[in-house]
């Protein structure tokens, strides 16, 4: 870090705390993560050293259950060289100019923070060592640290960090990049199973979540929007609703036509949520949904069928000579696959609290992506970004839904109409299902060319998705670098894009959660035609260990790492012994690479009377050299596996009639329950690569492994989700 960078920052360094103790605020440069597309930034990590030699470490990332509020402070504490039970973690507010990226998405946090978090801890530790060396008048390389103490072996002296506060406060932080970090063999916190920092408060039922935010004089708001997303407000019986018990305000909200920001609506503000929602039953709104009413699940399917029967509108990728390769093929395998729109269904419905006062906004938001929200609110309401303070609450599930901030803009727009009164906007479950940013549906017509030896010589995918012109909707892209397009010499990827009024968004392992299913299930058909099993076909396709370019700024794909997890899971799951399974029982395999993580999985099912029972799942993953928190890592993989099985088996799909989403609650868009939970075996292949995230990559392979298992058990191919064997 240059001196100029340092001097721009007011608080960098160590300062004495009133009442004793020491505050470290350490700025560490963070390399721009390619996929963020961001400039390199400074990260400010804070550590407070308190009397009694206890330590408060700032947790800067929103916690959605992915574990970052625990894992990032673990990295700091490790290099700061304190014991974990001396540490408490405090959630910071949202301010990327101070804390760097605070978003929770794309499984990127671990990769982005791994170095700077450790450097921040090491810099603070080094300042304490320097302080002790001065106090004792010994060389700086003499003292050592452990458990929040500095020791000098030669003289036998030792001193608690907190007692070095006066000396440390005088020092300038060292250059973090010049610090020597610990050898992983010495780790005492990283790599240990550590429960979530909020677990005791969760178990005690403490108010942690956005829905729990309390403010004096708070009003509760519900928001009615057009059932067909995007419809415009015409008129409503506002005065009737204003006269209902408990109702304080009924407001029309004029939107800007962007679902990501603000759509037209009617807000009812009352003394309780229940009163507001009850009053809503009497609300009658006339909407203009003429531009939306033509969209339906049925019409999408009909348009997709027509498109797949004709020449595609555009080519996404042409590599080698696919036409010649298909013409020369000894055999061609073809199949069509599709999958539906899906909702996120976070268990905590979307909500946000906002207070507009003296031209400034204070927001309490369960958001995965606070800075995006700040920008949207500023633009929609014409408030300067620096006049918006965003407090981060714990989040009752994200899965990508809360990367969008529509609920934040809505709450702010409502609060701006009642200055001085804090307003909590809460969605009902029906609102939550109707106002989602859905995983887009898609259709694929695949073809693979095989030569006489059963080698794949060409691959083709005609994809029908959603978009405008040649621009696919959010999370609806067909990436040219997807497996197996990146492994075959002759490839043709082409697409048609349909129009929809449904806003789309990122659902855990976006893109991959659908593409993993269709591509690996299709390759299982190709393997069968080639007289092989899918793991063998994949190993053939992968070939020798080498790095292949990723998509855009995405991570490179290393075939050796893919081989590693495939070979591992084949051994774990006794894949070769699967022939011994009784009739009606089968094992299936799936591999996928997403969010820089490599996962291969095997699923064992039995099928009776059209009912699928999943007995056991084996998952092998490679996310680099270090599992930061093995306890949370296991949770992430278990959660991903069960979620993926649910996408296929629970009956999930979003359907639409006359522009309106039909599903309104967990009965019509079900998620997996405890009674469908199989035994899940997880192992990590440790490789010499920087650690990467685990929130997503374990999900995509489980779906093809499941449908391939159903094929092994029954001979039936599942080419459409959700699974329906009737």
């Amino acid at each position, binding site marked *: 870090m240059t001196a100029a960078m340092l001097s721009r920052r007011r608080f960098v360094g160590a300062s004495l705390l009133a009442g004793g103790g020491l505050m470290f605020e350490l700025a560490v440069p963070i390399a721009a993560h390619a996929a963020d597309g961001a400039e390199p930034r400074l990260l400010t990590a804070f550590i407070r050293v308190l009397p009694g030699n206890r330590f408060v470490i700032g947790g800067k990332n929103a*916690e*959605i*259950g992915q574990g970052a509020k625990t894992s990032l402070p673990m990295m700091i504490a490790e290099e700061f060289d304190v014991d974990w039970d001396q540490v408490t973690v405090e959630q910071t507010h949202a301010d990327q100019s101070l804390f760097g990226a605070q978003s929770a998405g794309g499984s990127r946090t671990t990769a982005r923070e791994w170095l700077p978090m450790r450097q921040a801890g090491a810099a603070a530790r080094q300042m304490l060592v320097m302080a002790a060396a001065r106090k004792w008048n010994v060389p700086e390389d003499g003292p050592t640290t452990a458990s929040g103490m500095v020791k000098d072996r030669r003289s036998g002296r030792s001193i608690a960090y907190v007692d070095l506060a006066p000396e440390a406060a005088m020092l300038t932080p060292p250059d973090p990049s010049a610090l020597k970090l610990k050898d992983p063999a010495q780790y005492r916190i990283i790599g240990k*199973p550590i*429960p*979530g920092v*909020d*677990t*005791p408060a*969760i*178990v*005690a*039922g*403490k*108010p*942690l*979540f956005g*829905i*729990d935010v*309390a403010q004096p004089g708070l009003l*509760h708001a519900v928001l009615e929007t057009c059932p067909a997303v995007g419809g415009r407000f015409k008129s409503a019986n506002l005065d009737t609703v204003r006269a209902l*018990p408990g109702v304080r305000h009924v407001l029309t909200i004029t939107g800007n036509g962007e679902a990501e920001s603000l759509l037209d609506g009617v807000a009812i503000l009352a003394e*309780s*949520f*229940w009163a507001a929602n009850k009053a809503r039953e009497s609300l009658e709104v006339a909407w203009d949904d003429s531009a939306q009413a033509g969209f339906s699940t049925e019409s999408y399917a009909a348009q997709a069928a027509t498109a797949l029967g004709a020449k595609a509108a555009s080519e996404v990728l042409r590599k080698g000579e696919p036409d010649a390769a298909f013409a020369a093929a000894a055999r061609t395998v073809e199949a069509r696959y599709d999958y539906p729109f899906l909702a996120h*269904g*976070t*268990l*905590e*419905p979307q909500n946000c609290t906002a207070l507009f006062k003296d031209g400034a906004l204070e927001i309490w938001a369960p958001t995965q992506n606070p800075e995006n929200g700040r920008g949207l609110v500023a633009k929609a309401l014409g408030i300067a970004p620096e006049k918006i303070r965003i407090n981060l609450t*714990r*989040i*009752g*599930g*994200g*899965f990508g839904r809360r990367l969008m901030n529509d609920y934040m803009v809505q709450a702010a727009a409502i609060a701006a109409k009642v200055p001085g009164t804090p307003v909590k906007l*809460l969605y*009902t*479950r029906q609102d939550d299902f109707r106002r989602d940013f859905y995983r887009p549906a898609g259709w694929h017509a695949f073809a693979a060319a095989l030569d006489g030896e059963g080698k794949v010589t060409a691959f083709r995918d005609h994809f029908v998705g959603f978009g405008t012109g040649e621009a696919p909707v959010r999370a609806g892209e067909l990436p040219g670098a997807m497996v197996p397009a990146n492994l075959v010499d002759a490839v043709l990827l082409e697409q048609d894009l349909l129009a929809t009024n449904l806003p789309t968004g990122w659902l855990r392992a976006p893109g991959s959660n659908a593409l993993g299913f269709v591509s690996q299930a299709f390759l299982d058909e190709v393997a069968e035609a080639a007289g092989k099993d899918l793991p063998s076909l994949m190993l053939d396709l992968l070939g020798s260990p080498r790095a292949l370019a990723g998509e855009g700024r995405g991570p490179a794909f290393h075939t050796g790492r893919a081989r590693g997890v495939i070979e591992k899971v084949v051994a774990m799951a006794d894949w070769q012994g699967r022939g011994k399974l009784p009739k009606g029982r089968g094992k299936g395999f799936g591999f996928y690479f997403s969010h820089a993580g490599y996962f291969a999985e095997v699923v064992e099912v039995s099928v009776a009377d059209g009912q699928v029972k999943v007995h056991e799942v084996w998952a092998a993953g490679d996310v680099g050299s270090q599992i930061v928190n093995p*306890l*949370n890592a296991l*949770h992430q993989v*278990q*959660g991903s*596996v*069960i*979620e993926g099985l*649910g996408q296929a088996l629970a009956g999930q799909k979003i359907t639409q009639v006359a522009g309106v989403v039909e599903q309104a*609650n*967990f*009965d019509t868009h079900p*998620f*997996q*329950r*405890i*009674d469908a*939970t199989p035994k*899940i075996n997880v192992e990590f292949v440790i490789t010499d690569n920087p650690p990467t995230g685990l929130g997503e990559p374990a999900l995509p392979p489980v779906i093809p492994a499941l449908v391939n298992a159903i094929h092994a058990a029954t001979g039936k191919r599942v080419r459409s989700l959700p699974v329906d064997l009737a």
Partner: protein
Amino acid sequence: MAIRFTVNGAAREIDVDPEKPLLWALREDLGLPGTKFGCGAGLCGACTVHLDGAAIRACLTPVGSVEGQSITTIEGVAALDAGRRVGEAWHTLDVPQCGYCQAGQIMSAVALLTEVPDPDDAAIDAAMAGNLCRCSTYVRIRAGIKAAAKSRGAAA
């Protein structure tokens, strides 16, 4: 209309519409936000509390109907022996992920263990299938209930 009932061992009285669901009375009128809203339709179990020891869905229970009865919520469940054991197991096994469903999971688990001290997988699945965990912490919920069952009789 004043409604009187016992919450976590303490006598409480609130003056609200008796049709108001117990869930919202707890959260808004009694200052107990630990009980969660997930679906409002008896489909997710996030709002599970105990009515005289049995697990009920507070989102479907009009507060007027619990007049004179005894309610236990997540804020008070640790006072029960099974509540304490479940809480400890939940912490040791780090059951929660996002944590939002866990108040309901714990209330259902405690009700189960009070009735069936040593449940097998089938009994656990039957008792817990009404509690959705969107983060899919089910492997650990099963393990947590078994650990809590095993610690029966152990000192506090």
